[in-house]
């Protein structure tokens, strides 16, 4: 293969890896937004906690990959439910912005609490034997394959759950109408808890994979990744699950391509300028529906 194609394939692979991680986190933002029209700014920090759970499971309990991943997902899912019950539920009828600020507060709490317990960055031990294959010049690592396949698998499962199961139907119903759906006998609180559990669980999975790919973790790692995932959700059309996935791969792609062509310091500049432009042209995102206000 020519060098050009090899280079491109390599970049696309990198974009897929980054995009998968963004997508897993973006799903949590978009699901919570869909059901509560609330931006859960603590979500990026749940992702960070996921990475730390992974660290604890791997070092303190000495578990291998699969149980570590499972424990992390369960742990973050529980954390998501607890956060919702303690901090957001009492504010469900309060002004929307108080819930957002509360979420910011919860996020700060998670960051600083982790910092208090783990003041120095932690190294994740290699949980998987990393094999690198050389495919005609394109180097493909087993880690990349696992990250991409596992993420895609989780997304397919989620898409199935949301579109094909009773729980998913209830979720979509609540996001559609908050006044009458509770009257139909749908247990709203339970469904909201499930939404938070799924969203946080996916963030936990993302945390684990991120920790494997970039093995130095610190309490502030969730901020930037969280914001980027949030942007992915918006680009795709916030509240729209498939949109969040598409948005995440677009953002991952843009970031990788910008770094390929420009000095890496331009990455944020280009990514955010594109975002600004997109919102100006299509404020409701790629798959979102415009909401018209009745006069």
């Amino acid at each position, binding site marked *: 293969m020519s060098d050009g194609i090899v280079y491109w394939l390599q970049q696309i692979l990198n974009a897929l890896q980054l995009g998968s991680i963004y997508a897993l986190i973006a799903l949590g933002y978009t699901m919570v*937004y869909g059901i509560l029209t609330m*931006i859960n700014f603590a979500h990026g920090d749940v992702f960070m906690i996921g990475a730390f759970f992974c660290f604890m499971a791997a070092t303190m309990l000495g578990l291998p990959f699969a149980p570590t991943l499972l424990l992390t997902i369960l742990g973050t899912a529980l954390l998501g439910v607890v956060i919702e019950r303690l*901090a957001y539920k*009492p*504010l469900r009828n*309060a*002004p929307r*912005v*108080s819930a*957002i*600020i*509360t979420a*910011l*507060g*919860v*996020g*700060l*709490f998670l960051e*600083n*609490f982790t*910092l*208090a317990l783990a*003041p120095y960055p932690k190294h994740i031990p290699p949980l998987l034997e990393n094999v690198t294959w050389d495919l005609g010049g394109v180097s493909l690592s087993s880690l990349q394959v696992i990250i991409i396949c596992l993420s895609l698998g989780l997304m397919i499962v989620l898409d199935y759950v949301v579109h094909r199961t009773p729980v998913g139907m209830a979720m979509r119903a609540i996001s559609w109408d908050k006044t009458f759906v509770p009257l139909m006998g749908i247990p709203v609180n339970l469904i909201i808890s499930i939404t938070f559990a799924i969203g946080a669980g996916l963030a936990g999975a993302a945390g684990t994979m991120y920790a494997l790919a970039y093995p130095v973790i610190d309490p502030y790692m969730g*901020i930037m990744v969280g*914001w980027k995932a*949030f*942007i992915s959700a*918006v680009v795709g059309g*916030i509240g729209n699950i498939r949109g969040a996935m598409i948005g995440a791969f677009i953002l991952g792609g843009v970031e990788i391509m910008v770094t390929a062509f420009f*000095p890496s*310091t*331009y990455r*944020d*500049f280009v990514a*955010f*300028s594109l*975002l*600004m432009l997109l*919102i*100006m042209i299509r*404020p*409701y995102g790629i798959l979102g529906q415009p909401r018209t*206000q009745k*006069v």
Partner: protein
Amino acid sequence: MTALLRNHWDWLLEQRWLLPVLVAIGFILAFAIPEYNLLNKYVQLVLMYVGINIILAVSLNLVNGYMGEFSLAHAGFMAVGAYTAALLTMKVLPIAAYPGLFPLAVLAGGLAAALLGLLVAIPSFKVRGDYLAIITLAFLMIVKSVIENIDFIGGPRGIPGIKKLTTLPWVFFWVVVSIWMVRNFVYSKYGRGVLSIREDEIASDLMSVNTRRVKFLAFMTSSFFAGIAGGLFAHLLQFISPRVFDIIKTTDILIMVYLGGIASITGSILGATLYTVMLEVLRPSTVAGLLSWLPDMVFNPLNEYFIRHLGVWRMVIMPLLLVLVMLYWPRGIMGLREFRGFIPRRDREAHHVLKIPKSGEMP
């Protein structure tokens, strides 16, 4: 007794001389404190940070509280003001010969920020709510990224060695100006326009409010004072870099605004003061100092286990406090309420004193 106090208090608030006298006393103190070292250097420094944070919170409240949008760009405007002012005092203005030029540099920083504020106002014509929040976030990131990529202004390394020109009187001056102007703005037709946009933008437009103009003005005023605060901040910290003005800085200001209360100048003053002072008070050295009067028998174990680790845990306590405040006062401590002294007399009276002969001829 309380009734008597209350009467005196009411009487005091009705006096026209009250605010000018308070401001005059403030100025005398602002000059006297550093001159005669009435307070130690550390407390003076904290006071200056409190002042700068008040300017930031009051100005952000205009957009986030009064207008009800969720702007995340405030640290970006602050950065623009800080860099403009710092470059002026370091490279352009002959500050060494004429230190009196400092306020000009700060003013220029404010104007530069206001200009960018105009730019951010434009998307707000079309986009509202969460999407506008993201545009302001993108704007903040772009400002940061642009600064990082200009070598001339230090790139990611920032600008070290800025002269320490910010003094207590200057901070106090700008605090008074920002409070006064934001209050003037709020109690004018433009300010009422801002409020009506928060309540119902379409109805506001249909009641003849030029919503675009009002948004321009609100964003400009808000970013102007963020720029002023940035200039003061740069000449106090004596070092600026893009990392100083990132999303965490914006989050700090947001917390001050929503902790103190939306659409309330009093709230922003309270929020900024509480937040800044609390963070300082919770420093191990401060707590140790405050508790040093305790007998050693009590103090030593406390110091051993609690105070020494407070440095880390204070950052855990603060967000918890914020969440608790939000749960009990979702609109912040002073949300939608105002200290009477800040409301122009004309406005206060208009709500309960009839200025016209009563007609009431409706059938």
